[in-house]
């Protein structure tokens, strides 16, 4: 009796697998990847940071705290020097003191002052997404200033700048991916569907691009951009340059899938029904391997971010007044500034965490992309 019970149970399970749609199967497979789920949540978190950057950051990216330049991160405290516990965390006050040796003004901690942390404080006004005029910030310090990641040489809040940079860097990735998607689909589609001589030429071009070292190529293309271009123009040019190299992977995938699928019965029937080539590709072929395309795009996302960061870091990518992770790291370029202001490396943590997250998601998606394999 016990045996049959088990059997029924297993049958039920099998049936559930049988009737599940491809999408459900994918989701189940993806869910098994703990790290991929973790990666997704990290990415969503970053997206929220990017979307609500104005609200979450206590200061505007160019707002300067003149008396706290090159200031170290201000730690939150709960217990003050009198061993008294505060319910609301606070930061110690900062004062400018003259260094006895160099006679230079230096910020110093003043434990006699406590600046408590307050939420939903009024600060500099901003326009959220260019629409809502607001001046509420998530947090701020009462009676003074708060820089939890420290400040740069000009006294600008690094935490706020990191949030704005997250927005720029992620959007470079997204827009670069969109460019990659279009170039890859079109080139791969032409190669795979028309075949013959065209296919041969496109494949040679792809092999050729892959055999050129990427970074020197990016560098020389970026160096060719006119210096007087506006930040927005440079921004789009840089994303385009990044995708000029990365489309090859996608095009190869699209081509090989098209080659495999174009003799299938459903394609022939579509052609007999009078569909045009473009429609066959778009409506019948593309959906059948869309999951692979998504995987490839996810995998090339971190390369976009790393590429943008490297270019900007070398001073050939985005430049001030744009704020991206690479632009922020640009100020940490020499050993002297790192030794005196190690907190300038904090944007690097954002880069590493986001790239790891995307790699995890890519791994998870790769397994989920083919839901019918065991």
């Amino acid at each position, binding site marked *: 009796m016990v045996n049959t019970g088990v059997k029924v149970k297993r049958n039920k399970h099998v049936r559930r697998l049988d009737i599940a749609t491809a999408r459900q199967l994918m989701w189940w497979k993806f869910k098994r990847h703990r790290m991929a789920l973790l990666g997704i949540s990290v990415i969503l978190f970053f997206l929220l940071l990017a979307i609500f950057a104005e609200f979450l950051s206590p200061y505007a990216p160019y707002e300067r705290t003149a008396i706290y330049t090159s200031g170290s991160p201000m730690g939150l405290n709960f217990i003050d020097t009198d061993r008294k516990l505060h319910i609301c965390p606070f930061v110690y006050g900062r004062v400018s003191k003259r260094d006895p040796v160099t006679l230079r003004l230096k910020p110093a901690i003043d434990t006699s002052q406590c600046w408590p942390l307050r939420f939903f404080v009024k600060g500099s006004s901003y326009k959220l997404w260019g629409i809502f005029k607001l001046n509420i910030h998530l947090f701020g310090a009462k009676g003074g200033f708060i820089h939890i990641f420290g400040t740069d040489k000009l006294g600008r809040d690094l935490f706020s700048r990191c949030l704005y940079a997250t927005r720029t860097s992620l959007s470079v990735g997204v827009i670069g991916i969109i460019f990659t998607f279009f170039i890859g689909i079109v080139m791969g589609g032409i190669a795979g569907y028309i075949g013959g001589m065209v296919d041969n030429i496109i494949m040679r071009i792809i092999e*050729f691009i*892959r*055999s*050129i*070292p*990427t*970074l*020197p*190529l990016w*560098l*020389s*293309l970026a*160096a*060719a951009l*006119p210096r007087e271009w506006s930040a927005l123009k440079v921004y789009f040019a840089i994303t385009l340059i990044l995708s000029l190299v990365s489309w090859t992977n996608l095009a190869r995938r699209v081509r090989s899938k098209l080659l495999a699928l174009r003799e299938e019965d459903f394609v022939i029937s579509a052609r007999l029904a009078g569909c045009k080539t473009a429609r066959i590709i778009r409506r019948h072929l593309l959906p059948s391997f869309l999951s692979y395309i998504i995987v490839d795009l996810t995998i090339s996302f*971190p390369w976009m971010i*790393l590429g943008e*960061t*490297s270019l900007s*870091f*070398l*001073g*050939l990518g985005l430049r001030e007044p744009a704020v991206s992770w690479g632009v922020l*790291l640009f100020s*940490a*370029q020499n*050993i002297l500034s*790192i*030794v005196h202001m*190690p907190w300038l*490396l904090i944007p*690097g943590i954002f*880069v*590493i*965490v986001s*790239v*790891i997250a995307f*790699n*995890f998601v890519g791994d998870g998606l790769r397994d989920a992309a083919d839901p019918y394999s065991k």
Partner: protein
Amino acid sequence: MVQILIRRTGYALATLFFVSIICFIIIQLPPGDYADAYAAKRHAGGEIIRAEEVEAIRHQLGLDRPMYIQYLNWMWGVVRGELGMSLEYKRPVSEVIAERLPLTLILAFSTMVFIYSVALSIGILSAVRQYSAADHFFTVIGYIGLATPNFLLALLLMYASHKWFGQSVGGLFSPQFQDAPWSWARLMDMLSHLWVPVVVLGTAGTAFQIRTMRAVLLDELNKMYVIAARSTGLSEFRMLMKYPVRIALNPIVSTLGWELTRVISGAPIVGVVLSLPDTGPLFLKSLLDQDTYLAGAMILIYCTLVIAGTFISDVLLIILDPRIRYERLT
């Protein structure tokens, strides 16, 4: 075998030709030419420079000739080993590069050796002892290694060594050997500095190759011939080395060319951050200054290195895997 080699050489030469065109286009991309840049520089210095003078410079350098003639001139020079004059250094490009190229070659070669010696041993270890503590450890390290941009790793190493060892890791020589002629002591000194750029440059590649090696070897270890080999009484180590590892080496060797591409590609940025006396800083400076001949020659050299590397990896693969040899011949 000979036939394949000839065909491969043909491919390599054709690629080289296209690369040279791309290099030339890249050289020509920036608006304005060297004569303009030179005039602007003199002008910024407070000098007055007349339009005729600019025109004269342009004519003297042949910048007013049609594009394809400029290309052919340049190419003809390249074939004879004359890469033009560096406009910034006022010396032949080949001379400027020759001073620094050996260090780039040493760096690239040592990095490749580092990547493969570390990746193969750790990859085999991870596969044989799957899910052991060491395997998990290297998986985590691998993920972080893949995600960290080269320059960030360089910065972190510089910071760490300054903080804990109190020494700077930038450059390739200690101060007393900076301008000294080559000697045994100088070589040793260089080697003691070389590990930093090698580690920085090689980490991402190592992480990638460990993953490949582990995945392929795990597939192979489950196959029947492994059991058969074991049953003949071979020691575990010899069995591993003789059969599954040899097969697992295939994808590793076939991606050797890409790996070299990546190493060469990353070298300039590492050179800049660690201020190495190699071609990296030279390349970046030439791009920023629009020193066209120098920049073009550098790109050409980087691409040539990669093409040569890919060629070598193709040949290695043919030697390693008899299946490819026979497949192509029939």
